């Protein structure tokens, strides 16, 4: 700016003096560096402490491999189921008026306010010794606890609000107009859904799936309780990380953890990209969970 000789001496009425500004920025960055960046760095630093060779080797460890497979399997079941639930729930809530709607919406947020350990505990109580269902199912040869089904159930519990929470405000914002128009043109319910609704919500859906998946693969507390931690069979990646750690196999623990950290970073990047580019096609509550 050309000639502002007087102006430079006075600060704008809506800004702090530069010194204050930079001090605040510095404090903020230091705090974030300490609490956010440092732990992330530590994961990779510890994983590679003994060299890249040891790192790669520990990832090929049989227990690590089975943990990875199990995690992927659980996510592959839990996420699609929660997607179906999320779509159904948001369709019912956004397109219709019925009594108890607000109550239902509040209930959907329930898993967020419950400790993960409790989320797992409820399934132990339901299917464990002393329960009704457990022995009954066992007599049919169906094991829930200390087996994959239990892990899937617990994972579904903790991740089930994610997709619904994204879609409900989004579909409420979008209203019924498009669907009513399609119906008036002769489309069937299913056609309307596939050709009209789904394209409208696709970015919100993707966002919800992203968060749901990250949580599904990373869930620890709930799964720890129901899995029985049987090596090679019911340990997901987070559980295996704990196991390696408790057995003083630091490199193995951090190596596996680094994979999860990479997943977290990819999730963050994709999430940010979605927020920037499709911000108005995401829920009004895009930020903050």
């Amino acid at each position, binding site marked *: 700016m050309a000639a502002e000789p007087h102006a430079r001496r006075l600060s704008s009425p809506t800004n702090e003096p530069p010194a204050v500004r930079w001090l605040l920025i510095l404090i903020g960055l230091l705090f974030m560096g300490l609490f956010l960046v440092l*732990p992330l760095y530590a994961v990779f630093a*510890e994983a590679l402490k003994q060299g890249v060779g040891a790192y790669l080797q520990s990832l090929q460890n049989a227990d690590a491999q089975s943990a990875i497979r199990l995690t992927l399997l659980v996510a592959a079941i839990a996420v699609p189921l929660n997607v179906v639930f999320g779509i159904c729930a948001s369709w019912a809530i956004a397109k219709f008026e019925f009594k108890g709607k607000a109550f239902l919406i509040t209930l959907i947020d*329930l898993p967020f306010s419950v400790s993960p350990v409790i989320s797992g505990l409820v399934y132990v109580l339901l299917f464990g010794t002393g329960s009704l269902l457990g022995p009954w199912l066992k007599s049919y040869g169906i094991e829930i606890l200390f087996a994959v089904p239990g892990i899937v159930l617990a994972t579904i519990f903790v991740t089930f609000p994610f997709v619904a929470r994204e879609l409900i405000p989004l579909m409420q914002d979008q209203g019924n107009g498009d669907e009513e128009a399609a*119906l008036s043109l002769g489309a069937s319910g299913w056609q309307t859904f596939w050709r009209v609704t789904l394209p409208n919500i696709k970015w919100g859906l993707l966002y919800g799936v992203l968060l749901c998946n990250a949580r599904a693969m990373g869930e*620890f507390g709930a799964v720890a309780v129901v899995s029985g931690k049987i090596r090679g069979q019911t340990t997901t990646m987070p559980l295996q990380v704990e196991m390696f750690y408790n057995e003083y196999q630091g490199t193995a623990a951090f190596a596996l953890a680094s994979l999860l*950290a990479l997943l977290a970073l990819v999730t963050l990047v994709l999430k940010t990209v979605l927020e920037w580019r499709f911000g108005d096609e995401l829920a009004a509550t895009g930020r903050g969970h």
Partner: protein
Amino acid sequence: MTGSGRFRQPSVIPGFGLTFGFTITYFSLIILIPLAALVFRSTGLGWSGFWAAASDPRVVASLRTSFVTALIAAGVNVVFGTLIAWVLVRYRFPGRRIFDAMVDLPFALPTAVAGIALTAIYAPNGFIGQLVAPLGWRIAYTPVGIVIAMIFIGLPFVVRTIQPILEEISKEVEEVSATLGANRFQTISRVLLPSLVPAILTGFALAFARAVGEYGSVIFIAGNIPFVSEIAPLLIVIRLEEFAYAGAAVIATVMLLISFVMLFIINLIQAWSRRRYGYGS
């Protein structure tokens, strides 16, 4: 909502039966029935049994540890979270967008990974543990470690709750405050911060609620010493491993009750602020 006595308003859109039915079924199977089992089991002891289990000294100590550390961590998060939200919204500096995205890291990072990473840093031979050891401070394996872990996971709740409110504050309000003669400090302390109070309270409550129930990030860095650094979720797990299911159910019920109270308070705060300040009106 619905004026007449009907359950739902008629509508042109199809699929209510299907979607609503599936929703309720899924919800019941996954959420409601298991939770009912929890309540059922914990009442299995009868009132006196329930009370005895709930007031067991070790249980009380673990609840106290969980709640006190969560309170402290939420308090720290409110101070620094507000500052970070301010800095991210109002200032421009290199790397701002990256830091803004990083605030969500605790949401995305699995808790066990956070747990071992934090322990690695704050253990006596860790990066920071080493720095403070000469001062006679120990962070990991003490309640301080618990607080650190809870700060990590609670930070995004505060920042993300405050950011949208800050972004919404119109410049005109600050300008008008300046025209009335207020200096920058007065404008911030009398005009801007007070209007953030509802968001700050909500962020505090959310961070607190999350920290109380946290397990994975905490158990590695906590000492897990009963009566000193043992958190309530850990005690639940221990009881489960002892097959003392009823005892575990009792602790869980107490925790749940307190969580519901917190949720209720959050809703009250939000309703109050909407009435008072006309937010969202």
